[in-house]
Every structure is written in structure tokens, then in C-alpha cells.
């Protein structure tokens, strides 16, 4: 197991290296002169050619691309993420400032989606081809199809504007968390419900379930002790991936609800062409994503005795 984790960590570092390389290349190759963009952000209109060149030199943008990248990488290996090229904010501080908001929203949405999806998926599978099943399938399809952007605004309209129950935007209280969580959680629940349903149906067809029924075990024991455990494994994997994805910041939802998370930070930094900040954010998100996937795989081994990570994987 420890060998496996060590191997995975090695692989993760290769993946993260690749991610930073791709991000750097994308930013480097994007149209527009980064020195001019930075100079404009600092000085506003009426730039002189000399000013743009001074920025180019000061920010090391005049050196070849691979030198710029290796410079950045060297600093990061010393845990120095650098400063924003636009307003000199410390990048690590900025990321850590945004992380709690993103983590809160991600966890709450994930839990809400599981709280909806697991019961709905199970009921749907057990009552296959009934009206209840169709209703669950239809609702989950709706959840998947409704764009977050529209759902978020609709929820604000309903709960804040019409019912005066909740704030329409902001961060800091439990009330503020409700609408963004509902927006993200319900759309995620749609996918997870369908996954739970199909996984459950798959398991219920297995021979060991038939055998358990033949032995005369009651349906509840069969469901909870035998079926659910196996049916939830793919759901667990998927949720882990979702969590990794959510920790990157739910950009649209964060923007709609003025939620000061990583998603907003990343988008702002992309628009401002703040290279250092974009690189820092992407690196951080890639690490979170990889580690959450690793955590899921480890949990897998804990939950399923058939899965053993060892010599042959």
C-alpha cells in the first residue's frame, strides 16, 4: 500500500509538472503582448514604448520562454509562488485567502448532492420502471440539463426576491451558503442519482444477491449489507473526482453569488493576464485535484477487500 502511494505521488508530480507546462505554454502563446497588458494595468492609457520595454525587462519577459518557465519552477520548488505582476499581492496568500470559501462551497454541495442522490438512486433502482422511477430519472435529467447560471439566478429570484428568505449574494454566514449550495448541489445530484441507480441495478442482478435472496435473507439486509456497499463504489469514485473539480472553484456559481473563492480568483487573473497568479492558481488546483483522487483510491482499498494495490498494478 505504501509503495503504491509513493508511486502515485511520483506520478502526480509528473502530471502536475505537465499541467504547469501546458498552462505556461497557453498563456505564453495567447495573442497579445503580456508586457503591454501588464504595463496598461499599472499605468493606464498613454503608455510609452519605453515603459512597455521596462516592464518586459523587470518581469523577465524578455528572456526565452523556457528560461521564464524554469525560473518560475525554481521558485515554486522553494515554495515561492511569487507576487501578482499586476498589483504585487502575494500569490500564496491570495490562494489561501480564497481556499476556505471554495472548500466550504465544495463540501456543502457535495454533501447535498449525495444526500439527494443516494436515496433517490436507490429508490429509483428498487422501484424500476414504476412512476416513481420515471419521476426520479426525469428530475435527475432536469438537474443535469439546467445550466448553473440560470438556476442560480432563478433561486435568487425565488428565495431572495419573492420569498425574502435568504440573501441574494455574499459570504460569511450559513444563510449565504444555502443558495450557492443548492445551485451546485442539485445540478451535481442529477448525475450522481443516475450513476447510483445504474450501479444499484447492476449489483441487484449479481448472483450473490440472488443467492442471498434464495437463502431467505430479508430484503433490507440484502440491500444494506450486500448491495449498497458494492453499488456505492463507483459513486464514491465519481464524488471524489467531483470534489477535486469543485475545489478548483465553481466559477459561474461563485460569480453569480459574489462568492470569494478560487474560481473567481482564477478567472480574474486570466482576464488580467496575471501570469504568475494564473500559474499559481492552476498549480494549486492541480495539486488539490490529484490528491483528492488519490484519497478516493486509497479509500477504495479500505472499503473493498478485493482491491489490493500492490506489485501487480
Amino acid at each position, binding site marked *: 500500500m505504501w509503495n503504491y502511494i509513493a508511486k502515485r505521488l511520483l506520478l502526480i508530480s509528473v502530471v502536475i509538472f505537465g499541467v504547469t507546462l501546458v498552462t505556461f505554454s497557453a498563456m505564453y502563446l*495567447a*495573442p*497579445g*503582448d*503580456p508586457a*503591454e*497588458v501588464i504595463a*496598461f*494595468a*499599472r*499605468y*493606464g*492609457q*498613454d*503608455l*510609452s514604448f519605453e*515603459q512597455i520595454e521596462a516592464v518586459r525587462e523587470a518581469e523577465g519577459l524578455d528572456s526565452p520562454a523556457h528560461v521564464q518557465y524554469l525560473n518560475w519552477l525554481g521558485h515554486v520548488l522553494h515554495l515561492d509562488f511569487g507576487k501578482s505582476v*499586476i*498589483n504585487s499581492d502575494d500569490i500564496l496568500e491570495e490562494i489561501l*485567502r480564497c481556499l476556505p470559501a471554495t472548500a466550504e462551497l465544495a*463540501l*456543502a454541495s457535495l*454533501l*447535498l448532492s*449525495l*444526500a439527494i442522490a*443516494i436515496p433517490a438512486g436507490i429508490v429509483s433502482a428498487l422501484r424500476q420502471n414504476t412512476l416513481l422511477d420515471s419521476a426520479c430519472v426525469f428530475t435527475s435529467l432536469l438537474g443535469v440539463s439546467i445550466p448553473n447560471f440560470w438556476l442560480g*439566478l432563478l433561486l*435568487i*429570484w425565488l*428565495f*431572495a*426576491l419573492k420569498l*425574502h*428568505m*435568504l*440573501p*441574494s*449574494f*455574499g*459570504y*460569511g454566514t*450559513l*444563510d449565504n*451558503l*444555502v443558495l450557492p*449550495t443548492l445551485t451546485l448541489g442539485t445540478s451535481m445530484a442529477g448525475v450522481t442519482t443516475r450513476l447510483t441507480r445504474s450501479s444499484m441495478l447492476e449489483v441487484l442482478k449479481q448472483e450473490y444477491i440472488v443467492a442471498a435472496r434464495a437463502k431467505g435473507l430479508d430484503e433490507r439486509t440484502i440491500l444494506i449489507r450486500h448491495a449498497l*456497499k458494492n453499488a456505492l463504489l463507483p459513486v464514491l469514485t465519481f464524488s471524489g473526482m467531483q470534489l477535486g473539480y469543485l475545489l478548483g472553484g465553481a466559477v459561474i456559481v461563485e*460569480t*453569480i*453569488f*459574489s462568492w*470569494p473563492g478560487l474560481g*473567481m*480568483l482564477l478567472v480574474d487573473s486570466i*482576464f488580467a*493576464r496575471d501570469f504568475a497568479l494564473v500559474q499559481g492558481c492552476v498549480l494549486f488546483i492541480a495539486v488539490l485535484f490529484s490528491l483528492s483522487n488519490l484519497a478516493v483510491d486509497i*479509500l477504495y482499498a*479500505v*472499503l473493498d477487500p478485493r482491491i489490493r494495490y500492490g506489485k501487480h498494478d
Partner: protein
Amino acid sequence: MNQKLKLITLTLMLLAVISASACIGGEEDGTAKGAGSEVSSQELTVGISTDVNNWYLDKFPDGDGRFVWSQIYETLVRLDPDLNIVPGLAESWETPDDGTTWIFHLREGVSFHDGTPFDADAVVFSYSTQSYVTQAVLRPIESVEALDNHTVKFVLAKPMPLPFYLTHVAWPVMSPSSVDAEGNFISPVGTGPFKFESRAKDQEIVVSRNEEYWGEKPELEKVTFKVIPEASTRVMALETGEVDMIIKVPEYDVSRLENEEGIEVHRKLTTFTDFLQFNCEKAPFSDKAVRQSVAYAVDTEMITSEVLEGIGEAANGRAYSPVMMYSNPDLETYSRDPERARALLSEAGWGDSDGDGIVEKDGEPLCVTLLVSNGVWASRHNPMAQAIQGELAEVGIDVEIKLLEGGAVTQLENSGDFDIILRTGHFVWGPYPKHFFVHHSASPFSHYRNATYDELVNAADMTADEEKQKELYYSLQDFIIEEVPAFYLVHEEKIVASNSCVKGYTITSEDPWLNLDGVYLENE
């Protein structure tokens, strides 16, 4: 292993229950501020779209941050709501030599928020070489010198109407005590009617009344600026009462809000105008007749009334918004005339020989690209671009719209690799008439080269005599109508909406100035 499974399942279920109950509980107990809750005495909450990106004069304050700057910091010269020049921190000024030297006489008895006296040294500090503006727009400043405690002398490299420039809210006077001994910024210290209290990044900025303010003290005790990037959320936050006032109301919400009880909509033309900037250096727009043809083909009245829902005013080619100083009210502008547009194209040698509706010349069809930047104006520019595309197709010009990131547009503009760019504003701060430089041969924008035009622009920028300025700027407006280095489409209208409990608000033409003079809350 079963024990572990139970534990994990239980934990997961418990968390799910907690999270669900948090949601349900929230829905039961949550009451939005303003939804029936009492407004505190005189505390105004304003919804803005971006946070303050920086507080100090060494960098350009971007976006809505300037609305906050304009409460904390002040300028030597100010503008009233109609853009007339009025004294600010300077009571009077004069130029002994037609605009190369400017003497400002400062207001006495004014203090910064931390008690530091406002004097000539503070002005010298604010316009020293560390200030970003002296490295950009105010590059001609050669020296700033304190003649005595309350008199400052600016010496410029060339004559300039400096007081016009010094009205800009992004180049205000800051206290030398804003920085420590090493020159590192500590906190924003100005002389304005409100002083900085606190800030939660990307969430809110709080300012409180400056009890020592030299002018008329604000009625408001506290102003909280809430950062709400999404326009629709901003509008709903106003409707729920969570904020009392919002800026940058989207065009499509205006008529609805105007009919809504308890909401006041304030509208006023700004100095900004949307325009089609041609590349005058390469075909087809190197030919004046083709540029004029576009001017006759595009119906700016229709764009304003239909596309922008009546927000703004049709420009018909007028470069200067009517609120701008030196905007000529009697200027002869364009009006839509597709026949005339076709005739001009035909005179220039363009004709539709293959009957496909697109004109050609030497076998080449007239196909052009229209660049639209995906920046802050995109929501307005996208539908405008589509309307323009349709109207130009009617006279035989095929337009391809390209929506690009701002940096990409700038790169194409600098290299001259474009046909038309749809843009807004550009050097149209309040009274300073710098906008005409966009078509100057020394600028990288229109790629327009005309010696007569350049001379006119230089002369206008270098005169401090208002009569002479007026004459020169009138000539420049005529020049633009005739030569069309750009075709001006719509004069922008600024929209601010507030709850009816907000009284005494006068909207200003100046963006990004939020005028809170005389504003108070009428508590029910």
C-alpha cells in the same frame, strides 16, 4: 473492514443530514437584510461590480475601484455634475505663460483623514515620479515645486490645459503619510468626505464620514460598497433591499426597474461614445469613400432605440458626447441613406457583378472583419456588432465579427492587422479633449495619417485659451465627420438605480465618479 465501512457510511450520512438541515434551517431562519429589517440611521450600501484593485498612486486604479477612490481622495480641480470645472483642493489657478507653467493656490485649513495637514508638500508628493500618472498621461510634467505652504508650481515640457487633467479621480492628492519611511504603502489617506474603514477583499469596502471634512459634511455616516460582479444579481440585490444603490445597471433591466415601485432609476449621458475605428492604412478603409459609405449605411438611431432599448443617444458620427466640453451642438451629422452608401461604393469602384449581394473590385469581394473585445463592454457591443453586420450587408459589405480577448485586439491594432474595431471611450475623461489623439498619426490606433489633422490636434492640446480651444475642437469635429477615421455610433448613458429611501442623489456625467454630495436615507 465491516466496522470501517459502517463508520464511513455513518459519517457520510451524518454529514449529509447536517448539510441538508443547514440548508433547511437556513431557509427557515434566514431573513435577508432589508427584507423587513430596519435600516440603520444613515448607512448607505452600494453594489459595485469590481473590487478596488489598488489604493496607491503608483498604480492605475482599475474598474469600479475609482467609485470608492472618489469618496476617499480628492483632486485639486473638480467637476460638477454637468462637467463644469470647479475648485477642489485648489481654490484658484493661473498660468503666467500660456500653459507651460501652472500655479495652483491651495485651500487652507484642510487636513487629511489622519490629521496630517494638506499642504503644497502633499501635492508635490502626489505628482512625483513615483506616481504612475506622471509616467503616462502627465509625462509632460517636468517639475512640481512648493512655492510656499499653499502654493504649488507645475512646469510642463509643453503648453497644456493642466487643470482639465487634474480633475481625474484616479490621479488625486494623497497624504505623504500613506506610506512608511521606506515608501511602502500603509493605508489610503485622503482629504475626501469619507475615510477608509475596512475592506474584505472581493466582498466589501466600508468608508465612514470624515467629521473634519472641509466642505459640506456628508449626511451619510457610513457607506458600504458591496462587490457584486454579476449584473443580474446586483439588480436583484437592489430589489430585495440588500443594497440601497447599484451602478452599471444593464440596459435590458432599465425599463422594468423604471416601472417598479420603490426603485428610482437615474440616467445621464456620460463622456463615452461607442465608435467603429477603421484601419485607415490598408484597403478597403484607406479609401475615404468606403468609410463614408459605412457612415451612411449604419443607422445609429435604430441601434440606440432597438438594440440598446433606448439607452444612450444616437451619435450619427458625432465624436463628442453632447455633455463634453466643446461638443458642437450644431454639428452636421450623418443620417442613414443606403442609396448614398451604395453610390459611394460604386464611385470608389466597387460593384456587384456576380449578383451575390456583395460588391467586388478587381474580382475581390468587399469582406471585412469587425473586432469586438470580450471586455466590460461586450454585452453592449455584441448585439451592436450584429446589427451593424446586417446593415452593411444591405449595401454590399460582408462583415465577419470576431470576438477576441482585449490583449489580442490590442496586438492586432498595433500591427495594423485589422479592418474595423468596435470600441468605447478612449481618452474621454471629463473635460480633457485628448480623444482626438486616437486618430493622430503618432498613435497606434486608427493608423490614420493626415498632417492637417495632426497639426489641429497638437494645437488644440497645447492651447490654454478656451476660446481658441473651442474653435480648434469644432474644426476637429468637422474633420471627423468629413474624413471618418472612425464612425461614432452611440453616446453612452450611465445608469444608477436606487431604492426610493435614498434621497438627494444627483447623477453626474462623470464616470467613475459616484456623487454622494447631499445624499441621505429617509428611514421609514
